[in-house]
């Protein structure tokens, strides 16, 4: 891999923000649930949404870093992964 061009720090930073954000949201949801606040479930729902959106963003970041590194085959594969994951979700939703 042409590591010179691949911005690992961006991916590390993104993942750090993602897990810390998730941790903060779900810990807050847990505390709110303990005190009986009805907003707890809404916050947990937003937490799941954040996890899914962050996963999509992670694939996009990976793909774009591959493009920057001129690893075009991997760039295409990363977007193919995203399309296949989205297709699985759609197929299961529509035909289950």
């Amino acid at each position, binding site marked *: 891999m042409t590591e010179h061009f691949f911005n690992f720090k961006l991916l590390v930073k993104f993942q750090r923000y993602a897990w810390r954000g*998730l941790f903060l949201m779900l810990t807050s949801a847990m505390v709110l649930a303990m005190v009986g606040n009805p907003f707890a479930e809404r916050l947990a729902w937003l937490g*799941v949404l954040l996890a899914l959106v962050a*996963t999509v963003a992670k694939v996009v970041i990976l793909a774009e870093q591959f493009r920057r590194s001129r690893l075009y085959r991997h760039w295409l594969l990363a977007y193919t*992964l995203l399309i296949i994951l989205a297709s699985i979700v759609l197929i299961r*939703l529509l035909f*289950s």
Partner: protein
Amino acid sequence: MIPNELVVFVLCGIGAGLIGGLLGVGGGVVLVPLMAVFGGIGVREAVPVSLTAIVASSFAASNSYLKKGMVDLELTVIIALVMVMGNITGSYLSAVVPSDVTRLALTAVLLFTSVQLLVGKGSRSVSTLERIRHDRYPFCVVLALFIGALAGLIGIGGGELLTPLLSLVGGVSLSTARGTSSMVIGFSAAAACAVYFLNDQINLSILPPVVFGMIVGAKLGSILGTRARPWMVKSLYVAAAIYLSQQLSWHVIEAWW
């Protein structure tokens, strides 16, 4: 939720996250039974919570490995793609292949990898690993497809098979195999998690304590994993493989007996 229940779910999450982070596996095979036994919830309710927790903890676990350069990102994309395709094939094949046969096949693979890890060659030089990796790249892809299919047949993530097989066959060091696997499982779990999420099947009152515990456990596990000696990781993997084999095949063998 009463505080006692909350503590139980947090502890379940910590236990599964620790094992998952340390071995580079999802932890679902540990978390689901733990929640069912100690949390008193059904497997159908536990699986969506477990998958969501795996997606969340994968961010924390793989980041520690990524920082130490223990994730092969090129391999991650290819393996994730092929494993997901294998998973789809496996889930369709599950209607045709008897589940007992699949369970025994998975047990055989788990026991084989355990024995190979214990008696196999020790650490190899970087140049040797590079050469093996280059030679076996296509084989690695086929292997990922097979692991994905097998995992899809049983309904597990597949990290338990991916880590040792990448290390034994793929010419990847055990530490890189763990890091790569912890990243891959995040992608495959996300698709299943999205389906449950859109169908409103995730229990949102259990989820926060489980994810809280799982992230704490995964972070601790991955920090320990980047420092742990290979023999410790191998021993832990063998213990986990024996446990999983027993869970998978005991009732099949008992029925035959």
